[in-house]
């Protein structure tokens, strides 16, 4: 029987280091962590452009006061879809893609612990997003109640309510499976000598993030399922007329939503903690403090959710509790910022593209953190809440924070993936053009919010015209700049003739750099023997 079992035949085939034959066979049925990592990264890049196109519609309509291009309901559709696509389609899959590619190589494992589930967790995603996008062509259009889907407004939608909720269920299942896989891999498949407190910080950040995902995505699934039954099965979880409570949805949603914010930033912290020591040629300052700060931020993320809803009318004690809790987050986050700066102090610095993005991350993420401290102050938040000040805040932490870290990671590891060096000149053009335009795009939005412009409005008073125009120009510029990013990647993968060495960067440390470039299709089939100095910046004994 065994002789004719095709699965066994396939297994012996893989051991000989051959890739599967044929395009479909290779990509659709792959269980290889590198292939799946590539799929995730390509998918998230595509979604980055789709979500970006939605943002371009928003900035074009807001270019001038008056309605010029789209109806307000379509504008609301764009803001809702932009949020959903960027969060669930661009940022999260990009981090999962990086985890798939890098975690096994960083801990000396041959693959992810659960490779078939890995395939499934990726291939759910394209179908989930096809379903989400299909709502835009249905009667009544796509979701228009914002990515947060607050009832009762979200329940006023048409067919899109069911379809978008099912697509969120699918995205959630995909993420939970990805998180299970990552935890199983990190806890079970480390090479001998790779103790927990010697792991690279990127691995630590993903271990903690994966626990956050498992904890909160079921909560989101529950919240949207209650929306579904309220809409179609006559329940009244959130319907005041039936004895329900619209504010309860917000509590449940943000119990997911706040840890979700850290799901999108902790892996970014991990990336920056790899990149800065490499280009400073100096070990990461305060490795243990960095790991404990990650854990501390993750814990705090569970007890601060209601700072997204200070204006719903919570009792005084509730508002105070969530204000103090939120302010506490500044302390571990500050430790991280100070430690990155101190890592650079006394180093031997060079500024290749990954380092440029990492340095911009430290500065611009801090600015997003500063507005975050202001937002924590409840009386001031009564003014800031639901204005463009908040829009500026979370785009500083998610675009110049999470997205810049992803770009740093792509430039940092691309030579390891492709075996070729990217064009440093065009990488730097991409960086500088992004860094300037993104500030032109988001900095004036602080002013708009403070001056009195609410978020999610399709049209505005003429007093807000000037800064909106500046912001829109920055937006178009930033959007176009990302075409350079694609150009650099395509050039590096398919056309670059400059071979990358195994170590790639002069200051790089860690198991992934002991492999040749490009990394072979199967790596660490035998666990590596770890010798002194071989471990990454997480090696405290060094």
């Amino acid at each position: 029987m065994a002789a004719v079992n095709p699965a066994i035949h396939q297994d012996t085939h893989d051991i000989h280091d051959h890739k599967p034959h044929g395009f479909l066979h290779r990509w659709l049925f792959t269980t290889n962590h590198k292939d799946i990592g590539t799929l995730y990264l390509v998918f998230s890049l595509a979604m980055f452009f789709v979500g970006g196109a939605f943002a371009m519609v928003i900035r074009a309509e807001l270019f001038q006061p008056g309605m010029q291009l789209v109806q307000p309901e379509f504008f609301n559709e764009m803001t809702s879809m932009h949020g959903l696509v960027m969060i669930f389609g661009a940022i999260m899959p990009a981090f999962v893609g990086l985890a798939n590619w890098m975690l096994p190589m960083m801990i000396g494992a041959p693959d992810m612990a659960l490779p078939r589930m890995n395939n499934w967790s990726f291939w759910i995603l394209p179908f989930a997003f096809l379903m989400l996008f299909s709502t835009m062509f249905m009667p009544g259009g796509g979701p228009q109640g914002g990515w947060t889907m607050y009832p009762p407004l979200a329940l006023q939608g048409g067919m899109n309510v069911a379809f978008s909720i099912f697509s969120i269920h699918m995205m959630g299942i995909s993420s939970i499976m990805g998180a299970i896989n990552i935890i199983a891999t990190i806890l079970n498949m480390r090479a001998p000598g790779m103790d927990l407190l010697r792991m690279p910080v990127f691995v630590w950040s993903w271990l903690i993030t994966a626990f956050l995902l498992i904890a909160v995505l079921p909560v989101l699934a529950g919240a949207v399922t209650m929306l579904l039954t309220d809409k179609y099965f006559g329940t009244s979880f959130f319907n005041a007329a039936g004895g329900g409570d619209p504010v309860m949805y917000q509590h449940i949603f943000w119990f997911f939503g706040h840890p979700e914010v850290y799901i999108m930033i902790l892996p970014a912290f991990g990336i920056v903690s790899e990149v800065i020591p490499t280009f400073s040629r100096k070990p990461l300052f305060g490795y243990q403090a960095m790991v404990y700060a990650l854990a501390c931020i993750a814990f705090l993320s569970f007890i601060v959710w209601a700072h997204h809803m200070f204006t719903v009318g919570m009792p005084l004690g509730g508002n105070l509790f969530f204000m103090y809790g939120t302010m506490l987050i500044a302390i571990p986050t500050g430790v991280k910022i100070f430690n990155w700066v101190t890592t650079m102090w006394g180093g031997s610095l060079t500024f290749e593209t990954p380092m440029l993005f990492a340095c911009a991350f430290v500065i611009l993420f801090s600015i997003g953190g500063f507005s975050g401290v202001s937002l924590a102050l409840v009386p001031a938040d009564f003014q800031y809440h639901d204005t463009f000040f908040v829009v500026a805040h979370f785009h500083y932490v998610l675009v110049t924070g999470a997205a810049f870290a992803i770009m740093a990671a792509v430039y940092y590891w691309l030579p390891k993936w492709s075996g070729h060096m990217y064009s440093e000149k065009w990488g730097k053009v991409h960086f500088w053009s992004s860094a300037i335009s993104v500030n032109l795009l988001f900095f004036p939005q602080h002013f708009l919010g403070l001056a009195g412009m609410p978020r999610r409005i399709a049209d505005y008073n003429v007093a807000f015209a000037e800064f909106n125009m500046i912001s829109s120009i920055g937006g178009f510029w930033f959007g176009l700049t990302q075409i350079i990013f694609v150009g650099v990647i395509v050039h590096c993968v398919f056309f670059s003739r400059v071979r990358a060495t195994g170590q790639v960067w002069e200051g790089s440390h860690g198991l992934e750099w002991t492999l040749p470039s490009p990394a072979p299709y199967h790596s660490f089939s035998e666990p590596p023997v770890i010798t002194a100095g071989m471990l990454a910046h997480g090696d405290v004994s060094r």
Partner: protein
Amino acid sequence: MANPQPWDWNMPKGVSGISQRVYDLHMLGFYVCLGIGAVVFTIMFIAMFRFRKSRGAVAETWAHSTRLETVWTIIPILLLMMLAWPATRLLIDMNDVGDADLTVKVTGFQWRWHYDYVEYEKANTGVAFISSLAAESNRVRQLGSGLDPHSVKDEDYASYLLDVDNPLVLPVGVKIRFVITADDVNHAWWVPTLGWKQDAIPGIVNDAWTQIDEPGTYRGQCAELCGRDHAFMPIVIRALPKAEFEQWLASRKAGAASTAALVTGPGHRG
């Protein structure tokens, strides 16, 4: 100026004692962040220039200092306490809605506001009306209207989308309590010059208060996404000296009996 002007880049100080204190807290937070930013970014830029490999910098190998890490854990704690103290005091004061002389019930609808002067100096007033986007703004804001938003004026102010047919008339120097709710979906009632916003949620009655110090016209709008015309449900307060307000209230009361059916509208519960 109280209402948004071109190139405005900061929060208005507003026209009440509370709004002034909100502004002061906002500026305190800003200066604390500015101070931290100045120190951290200066150190970072010095490092970026001084420790460049191209300038011959050789990397050191130290990677830990318990003393330093303790210092930069404690300093932020002290700074945060400096912010938390005035924030807590202000929040307690903003929460104290007792002893108001005027109570106005605000109800959010898609996409207009209903105002009900529930009680003034312990007496029921019976005055209530609906406030919607002014007709001229509504004409200009239609897609492809070809009309210039700059042309919409209320007195001298370029009031596009910040003007209404029936403004909310309020007295100066009187403690006013608002009870805020909604009839269909969530809205939020926000006039920046009062220093706060409050969500209007169906099935829930929130409250908030203000005491306006200066007569004038103060503009705001709905601040919680409420569907198609979320951008088009402004709020305008006309703050009058107490005597003029009482005059206005009396004239509305006299007219109220005859027009009650019209102004309260269908579906209003009372």
